[in-house]
């Protein structure tokens, strides 16, 4: 395997560069996926039937906690990649573990939020609005859940195998995924919650 030492490890082989570009294109597809969910959300947002409207059920506190947790985790994973580029395995692992902890905190808050919605009569089957609200949030939440497992695998691999072209490549791609989830959340935060509460 040819390793180009002038580049960061995650870019150092041709295979790595293919994977990074491939993942960017995958993120393009993810944008289209979430755009479709948003389009559906905006179409159905007023179709509340006998169920509640957004303004009735949204609460600022949990949403703000989720936002801050996720934004911070996006910051820490950025620091993790920075540490990785400086070759500091330990710092990188610490930042990744913090990221995963913040992600788990986000997920916990979201689970609490979902339970709350079902409790106050805004379950999945109540109206077109609640169906798409929970589906949109749920799709993002499922991505985060998957990300937590993925991140754990990467931490384990870095611990065992050290910073190699493969592990750094995986970690970098994972960071792209995590940042992307943050971007999606920003749009959910703005156009689902804040717009709904306005």
């Amino acid at each position, binding site marked *: 395997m040819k390793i180009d030492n002038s580049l960061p490890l995650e*870019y150092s082989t041709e295979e790595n*560069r293919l994977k*990074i*570009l491939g993942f*960017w*294109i995958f*993120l*393009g*597809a993810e*944008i*289209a996926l*979430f*755009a*479709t969910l*948003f*389009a*559906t959300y*905006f*179409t159905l947002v007023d179709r509340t039937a006998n169920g509640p409207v957004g303004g009735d059920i949204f609460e*600022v506190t949990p949403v*703000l906690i989720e*936002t*801050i947790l996720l*934004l*911070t985790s*996006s*910051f820490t*994973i*950025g*620091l993790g990649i*920075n*540490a990785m580029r*400086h070759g*500091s395995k330990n*710092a990188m692992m610490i930042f990744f573990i913090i990221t995963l902890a913040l992600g788990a905190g986000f997920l916990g808050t979201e689970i609490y939020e979902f339970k709350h919605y079902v409790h106050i009569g805004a379950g999945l089957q109540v109206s077109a609005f609640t169906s798409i609200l929970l589906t949109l949030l749920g799709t993002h939440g499922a991505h985060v859940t998957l990300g937590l497992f993925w991140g754990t695998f990467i931490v384990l691999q870095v611990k065992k195998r050290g910073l190699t072209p493969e592990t750094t490549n995986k970690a970098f791609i994972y*960071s*792209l995924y995590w*940042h*992307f989830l*943050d*971007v999606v959340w*920003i*749009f959910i*935060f*703005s*156009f689902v919650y*804040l*717009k709904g*509460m*306005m």
Partner: protein
Amino acid sequence: MNMKQLFPRGHVMGFIFSMVLTAVALGVVVYELSFKTGMIVLLVTAFMQAGVQLVMFMHAGESEDKKAIYTNVYYALFIALVTIFGTLLTMIWGYQ
């Protein structure tokens, strides 16, 4: 590694910036802006946040595939906007 290496300026600034943008967006609810101004504020802050993530954290422009990556992102954005606004046009705005 020292603190400066662990917490590079760009990342810290990006993080502070994203927190500020979140606070501004939150202002829409706190200050009960009109729907129109509120939407404008939200659009601006959301897209700026996305930009911060894309450029500062995701390093979209750092590799030899910069052009392909940006083309991909712009194309995706185009599709996203067409899907969202096209759907609104055919599902809601189009009916009288």
